[in-house]
């Protein structure tokens, strides 16, 4: 198992390196630079030169990249002039919100997906199955920002059950925090749940056709035990993988959903970095988000190893 984890880690390293390359150079392609954004509209070329020299921006771009990467590896992501704090601090401050949103979305998705997908597979071609399929398709098709808007309309404006925006920290009030998070989490989790449900269904259909399920029936195993013990553990393997891939969607979707619901998360921070042309912050958030995707998938691979003993060796 240890060897397996190390092998996975080694595969992730070149990808992380590639991410740093793209995060750095792509942001440098954005017109204008930090200096002009910092100085505003009125400045002399000399002032700009002085600032550039101060930030090392007059060095060749490769040198700048190496410098940036070395700093990043030491935990220094640069300074964000928009938040007026170090980039890392700005990100870490907002990270818990995004993590909570993502986790809550996944929990909602899984609670929805696994029972629905399993029942749909067991009652293949029944009305329930068709209903679940339709829900799955709609869940994938409905834009999360529209779903969010609709939920605000129905549950906040009309029914008045939830605040229509604004964020309450977990430490201020657990209930208030949950109230401010639940709608965004549903908006974000619906599509993930739909994808995971479709995967659960098809994977369950495949597993229930396997010989070892026939064998388990021949052993006299009850149907409940057959599903929960013999089939589900195998059927969940691809579902976990799909959930891992969906992290990318969750992180991207958080940009939109955090914006709608006014949640101060990393996604919103990335958007603010773009609109305020805060390049150090943008590089930092992009690097962070993409690395988070890789790391989550690394974790998923390890969970995969636990679920599927064959893969470990």
């Amino acid at each position, binding site marked *: 198992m240890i060897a397996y984890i190390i092998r996975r880690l080694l595969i992730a390293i*070149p*990808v992380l390196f*590639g*991410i740093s*390359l*793209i995060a750095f150079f*792509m*942001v440098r*392609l*954005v*017109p204008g630079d930090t200096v002009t954004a910092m100085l505003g509209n009125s400045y002399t070329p000399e002032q700009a030169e002085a600032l550039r020299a101060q930030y090392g921006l007059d060095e060749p771009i490769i040198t700048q990249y190496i410098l940036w990467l070395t700093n990043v590896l030491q935990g220094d992501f640069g300074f964000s002039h928009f938040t007026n704090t170090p980039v890392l601090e700005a990100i870490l401050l907002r990270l818990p919100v995004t993590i909570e949103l993502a986790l809550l979305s996944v929990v909602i998705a899984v609670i929805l997906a696994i029972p629905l997908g399993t029942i749909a597979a067991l009652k293949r071609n029944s009305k329930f199955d068709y209903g679940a*399929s*339709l829900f799955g*398709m*709609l869940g*994938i*098709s*409905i*834009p999360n*920002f*529209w779903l969010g*808007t*609709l939920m*605000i*309309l129905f549950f906040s*404006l009309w029914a008045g059950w939830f605040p229509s925006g604004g964020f309450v920290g977990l430490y201020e009030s657990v209930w208030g925090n949950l109230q401010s998070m639940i709608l965004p989490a549903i908006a974000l989790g619906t599509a993930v749940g739909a994808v995971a449900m479709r995967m659960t269904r098809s994977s369950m259909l495949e597993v229930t056709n396997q010989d070892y399920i026939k064998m388990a029936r021949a052993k006299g195993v009850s149907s409940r035990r057959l599903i929960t013990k013999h089939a589900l553990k195998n059927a969940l393997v691809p579902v976990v993988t799909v959930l891992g891939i969906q992290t*990318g*969607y969750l*992180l*991207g*979707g958080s*940009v*939109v959903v955090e*914006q*709608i619901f006014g949640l101060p998360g990393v*996604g919103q921070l*990335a*958007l603010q970095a*773009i*609109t305020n042309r805060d390049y150090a912050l*943008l590089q930092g958030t*992009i690097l962070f*988000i*993409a*690395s988070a*995707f*890789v790391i989550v998938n690394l974790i998923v691979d390890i969970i995969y190893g636990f679920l599927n003993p064959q893969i470990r060796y």
Partner: protein
Amino acid sequence: MNEIWYQFKKNKIALFGLGMTVMFIIFAILAPLIAPYDPYEMSTSDSLAGPSLAHLMGTDQFGRDILSRIIYGTRISLQVGIISVGISLVLGTLIGLVAAYYGRWVDMVLSRFTDVLFSFPDILLALVIMAILGPSLTNLMIAIGIVYTPIFARIARGAVLSIKSSLYIDAAKSMGVSNRKIMWKHILPNSMAPLIVQVTLSFAFAILAEAALSFLGLGVSPDTPSWGIMLSEGKNWMETAWWIAVFPGIAITLAVFSFNVMGDGLRDALDPKLKNESS
């Protein structure tokens, strides 16, 4: 071909998707004939009017007819779909073909590159590309096209790798057929089925991405009748005029749904064929 259609036809919901798609295409082409109003025409006296016989889906804050803007919006969505998916398809297939066909370090480099691109959430990547290129419809299509390139590269690479090892390619090689000819004449047509399915599904993604970017204000210019823009504007009027945001949302969902079910139906219809090829 007939057999695929026969299989596809059995899937009623996919057929619905096809019907809806045809309808959207007709709307896009005949928009000026079908739309009851000019989508850009403002009218202060009619602003924020609810759904009525005169304006079936109501009007926005400038008094523009929502229905007409939605009908014109099909043009934007389909255009974005066609062009951005076209970009991803051509670029991705090329990358995948080259990677799989030449193998070794070429494959190494290209595959790692697509892996890395894959790690960026699509919306975020598109946002940054839009920041680089500046907001416009053309740039939006380029950005979405780039974002969905890796998935085509992966599919093309996978499909080619599975076919490459098959006997008839060896046969062609042994008869001295040139590399390029093998790629175009033998490998590409046989990689078609999964690519076709992905095109349909990516169409849905592209429509969603355009709406999301426009919604965030980094897409097309604000007066364009784009579904995403309409939704984004409507959001601010949610309390007083729900129809501004609700109807474009239905349009997006319906369009995306149609392409998704069509893609699903196509995959199911093509699947037995795919299986035959690999065996």
